[in-house]
């Protein structure tokens, strides 16, 4: 009988917990993501995001762009997505976003990267097993231009004894 790897396996950890965050701490998030035309067209269609700038290249050219424009909401959720492992994967509800600004258009083929700074942390009165953390997240294009920035607030699980 073959070896059952589950018996000896050590869980490869992911994410951070409430105690890991300190105001001012900076996270350069992993991977980056090139946003391609398929991503943009599919996302815009699935979300009924009916502005032809996002799915009609000729229309976008007539508005001074080189081709399609990436749906700004996709820019937001992609930069958000890249930040999740560092910030919120370990569990806790996503509460809200404030002061989001779109600062430069993104075009298919552009590569997004993300960085976050811890703004604030506090304990939750109603949920002793969690704390509330706010981060300032910024998204950049390959040439270094900042394309988006926002503040996000989440519940974040506290470390349990023995973990």
């Amino acid at each position, binding site marked *: 009988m073959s070896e059952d790897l589950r018996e000896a396996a050590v869980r490869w950890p*992911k994410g951070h917990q409430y105690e890991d965050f300190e105001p001012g701490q900076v996270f350069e998030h992993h*991977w980056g*993501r090139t946003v391609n035309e398929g*991503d943009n067209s*599919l*996302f*815009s269609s*699935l*979300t*009924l*995001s*009916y*502005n*032809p*700038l996002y799915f*009609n290249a*000729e*229309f976008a*050219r*007539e*508005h001074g762009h080189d081709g399609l424009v990436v749906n*700004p*909401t*996709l820019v*937001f*959720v*992609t930069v*958000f*997505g*890249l930040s*999740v*492992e560092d910030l*919120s*994967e370990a*569990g806790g*509800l*996503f*509460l*809200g*976003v*404030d*002061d*989001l*600004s*779109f600062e430069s*258009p993104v075009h298919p083929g552009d590569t997004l990267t993300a960085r976050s700074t811890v703004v604030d942390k506090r304990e939750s009165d109603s949920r002793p097993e969690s704390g509330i953390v706010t981060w300032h997240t910024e998204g950049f294009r390959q040439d270094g231009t900042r394309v988006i920035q*926002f503040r996000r607030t989440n519940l974040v699980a506290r470390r349990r004894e023995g973990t």
Partner: protein
Amino acid sequence: MPGELFALTGSDNYFEDFQPGAVYEHARGKTVTEMDGVLICNMVMNTAQGHFNEDIMSRSPQGQRIVFGGVTIAMVIGLAMQDTGEQALAELALDQVRLRTPVFHGDTLYAYSKVLDVADADRPDAGVVSFLHQGYNQDGKLVFEGERRVLVKRRSHWGER
């Protein structure tokens, strides 16, 4: 491109059409399917398995996967987009975005918008419109609300172009 640009979009959603205080119900709702939620969550590299591991979530207090809040935001703003952003030259800002109730696969979302403010822009052919958007589920529970600022074409410059 053959034909006129303005023929590709609506004629009732230019800057001049938005008056502060006006409240709109957007005509279409959308059932957020597993395909929408998991596809978008994974496509944007969101690694939180509470959105895509049904086995783990079946043993959680919710009993099932929760739709990524970014998808909820995108879906409600999307439902409002034809009316409030089809004439947008640019999306400018979001603020005070709050997720009030979790969304699960199979929930149906409906979108409502209020015009908060209209203002001149730094270019003559467009103005800035501020909206409050709300999204409700099939049970009438508020799932999302947030403010959005958009740079919207003026009919005076774009209506016959």
